[in-house]
C-alpha cells in the first residue's frame, strides 16, 4: 500500500462522510422517542431505537394502542399513506407513457429528416429555460378550465410535460448510436416499419430505455411545486405536499414523525438509485443537432 493509495482511500472516507452524514442525521431522529430528539449533545445512537414513528405515520397503532394525532385531527395522519399511493400511481403511469411517446419521437429525430426538425429540437430545450414558477399560473388556469385540478390524470399530464422533452433528448442520443444496418437488414427481410421499431430497435435500446425510465420515475416521484399547487388538499394529493404539510410545525414539534415520513418516502428512491445506478450514470447527452441523419430512404 503506497502513500498514493492511502491518500485516495482517505478521500473515499471523506466522500462517504459527506454523503452519509446528512442521511444519518435524519435517520437517527426517526428512531428516537420525541423527548430524546431534544437531547444536547445529540445522542449519536438512540438509547432505545424503535420504529413506533414509522408505524404511527403510516396510520398504524402504537404500543399502547394509540393512533398518531399529531396535534391535528385524526384524518391528518391518513393523507401520508394515500400520498405515497397517489405518488406511486402517478409516477409509474407517467414513466410508462413518457417512455413510449418519447421513444417514438426520439426514433424519428434520430433516423429521419423532416420539416422543422431542428426547430422542434430547440423547442424541446425551451421547456427547461423558464422557471417552473412561471408555468404554474397558466397550468392552474388551464387545469381549472378542464377540471383537472386534483386528479391523477392532471398530475400525470403535468409530469409528462416536464419529463418528455428530457427523455426525448436523451433517447435521441441513444438511438443514433445504434447501428442502422440492423434496421436495414430487418427491412430487407420483410419487417414493416413499426415492426422494425418495436421488435428490433427498441429491444436493442433496452438499457437506454431503462435509464430514461428511472430518471423519469425519480423526477415524478420527487417533484414538489406542481404537486403543491395542483394537488394539495385534494383526494389526489401527492406525497411531497403531504410531507411538507405536516413538516412546517413538525421540525420543531414532531421531529420524529417528520423524519420517519421522510425516510419512508426516500426508501424507494434509495433502492431505485442503488439498483439502477449503472443505467443512470451511463447516460450520455449527445447534441441531436449534430447527429447525421441518413439521407437516403431506410431500405
Amino acid at each position, binding site marked *: 500500500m503506497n502513500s498514493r493509495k492511502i491518500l485516495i482511500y482517505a478521500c473515499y472516507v471523506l466522500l462517504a462522510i459527506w454523503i452519509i452524514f446528512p442521511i444519518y442525521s435524519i435517520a437517527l431522529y426517526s428512531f428516537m422517542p420525541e423527548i430524546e430528539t431534544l437531547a444536547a449533545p445529540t445522542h449519536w445512537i438512540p438509547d432505545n431505537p424503535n420504529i413506533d414513528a414509522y408505524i404511527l405515520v403510516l396510520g398504524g397503532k402504537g404500543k399502547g394502542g394509540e393512533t398518531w394525532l399529531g396535534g391535528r385531527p385524526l384524518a391528518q395522519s391518513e393523507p401520508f399513506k394515500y400520498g405515497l399511493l397517489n405518488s406511486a400511481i402517478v409516477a409509474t403511469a407517467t414513466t410508462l407513457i413518457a417512455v413510449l411517446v418519447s421513444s417514438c419521437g426520439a426514433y424519428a429525430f434520430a433516423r429521419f429528416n423532416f420539416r422543422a426538425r431542428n426547430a422542434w429540437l430547440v423547442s424541446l430545450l425551451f421547456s427547461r429555460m423558464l422557471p417552473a414558477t412561471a408555468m404554474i399560473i397558466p397550468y392552474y388556469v388551464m387545469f381549472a378550465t378542464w377540471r383537472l385540478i386534483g386528479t391523477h390524470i392532471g398530475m400525470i399530464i403535468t409530469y409528462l410535460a416536464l419529463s418528455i422533452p428530457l427523455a426525448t433528448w436523451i433517447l435521441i442520443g441513444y438511438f443514433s448510436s445504434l447501428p442502422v444496418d440492423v434496421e436495414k437488414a430487418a427491412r430487407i427481410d420483410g419487417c414493416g*416499419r413499426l415492426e422494425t421499431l418495436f421488435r428490433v430497435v427498441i429491444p436493442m435500446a433496452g438499457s437506454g430505455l431503462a435509464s430514461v425510465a428511472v430518471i423519469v420515475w425519480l423526477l415524478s416521484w420527487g417533484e414538489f411545486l406542481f404537486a403543491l399547487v395542483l394537488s394539495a388538499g385534494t383526494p389526489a394529493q401527492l406525497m411531497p405536499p403531504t410531507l411538507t404539510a405536516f413538516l412546517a410545525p413538525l421540525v420543531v414539534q414532531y421531529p420524529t414523525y417528520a423524519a420517519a415520513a421522510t425516510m419512508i418516502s426516500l426508501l424507494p428512491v434509495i433502492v431505485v438509485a442503488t439498483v439502477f445506478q449503472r443505467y443512470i450514470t451511463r447516460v450520455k447527452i449527445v447534441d441531436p443537432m449534430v447527429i447525421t441523419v441518413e439521407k437516403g430512404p431506410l431500405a
Partner: protein
Amino acid sequence: MVALKSGHPESSVRRLTDRQFAYLLVIPLVAFEFALVLYPMTQSFLISLSTYDVSGTKPTFVGLQNYVDAFFDPYVQRATVVSMQFACTVVALSVLVGLGVALLLNEELRGRAIVRVLALLPWAIPEFSVGIIFSYIFSNVLGTLNGLLYSLGLIRSYTSFLNPDLAVYIVALAFVWHYSPLASFFFLGAVQTIPADLYKQAKIDGAGMVRRFRVVTLRFLRYPLLIVLVLATVEALRAFDIIFVLTYGGPAGSTSTLSYLIYTETFRTLQMGYGATISWYLALVTFIVTSLYFILIGRWR
C-alpha cells in the same frame, strides 16, 4: 404488438414514405409540446403584460408597465443579488466538488463500485427532501451540526446557523450536496475518455502531477465544464423547493431568490401578472449568464 401480427395496421404503415412515417411518430410528441409547453409559455408571457390579480376580474393589458416596474422594484433588485450569491456559490462548489469526486472515482481501486453507488445517491434524493434533511442538520434546536460541534467541544451552546448572513450559503451548500453528483458524472465521462498514454508521455517528459493535470486533464474537460456551468447555473437560478422547505425565503428575506420571489408575488400577494413578469425577467438573466459562458469558454484554449 398484438395488433401488428394481424397485419392490417402494418400494411397501411408500409405504404408510407419515410418522411410520413417520421411525422406519424413525432405527432404525439409535438402535440404534447404544443399543448403543455408552448401554449402555457405563450399564456405566461401574455399574463406578464397585464395586471392580473385574484379579485376575479379579467386580466387588463398594460403593455410593458410590469417590466418597467420590476426593473425599479427594490425587492426584485434585492432578489437578483440573492440569486447571484446563491448561483455563484452553487456553481463554484459544484465544479470543485464535481471535479474532485470525478477524479477520485476514476481511480482503479477496490471499493470503487460502492463509492460510485454512494456518490450518485444525493442526486436521486428529491430536492425538497434534501431541504428537509438539511433542516435536521442546521436546526438550532436539535441540529446534528450543533450536536457535532458541541460533542467536539467547539461550541458552548447551540447556535443558529440559518441567520441572515449565512442562510443563503447554507441553502446553497445543501443544493450542492444534491446537485454535484450530476456534475461529477459529467466530468467522469470526460475523464474516462482521456488516453492513458498521454499521462505516460507527460510523465516521461518530466511533468509533475499538477502540470499533468493542467496540460492533459484540463484540455479534455472544456466541453463538460461548459455543460456543468450552464446546467448548474440554470438549475440554481430555478431552485425553489429547497428554499421553500429550508428557510421560506427568510430570515429577513436573505434567501428570497428571484424564483422564490415569483412564488410569493404569485401566491401570497396574488399579483399573477407581476409574478409572470419577474419569471420572464429571470429567464432573461439566465439567458445572459449562460451566453456569457459560451463566449468565455469558446475563447479559452
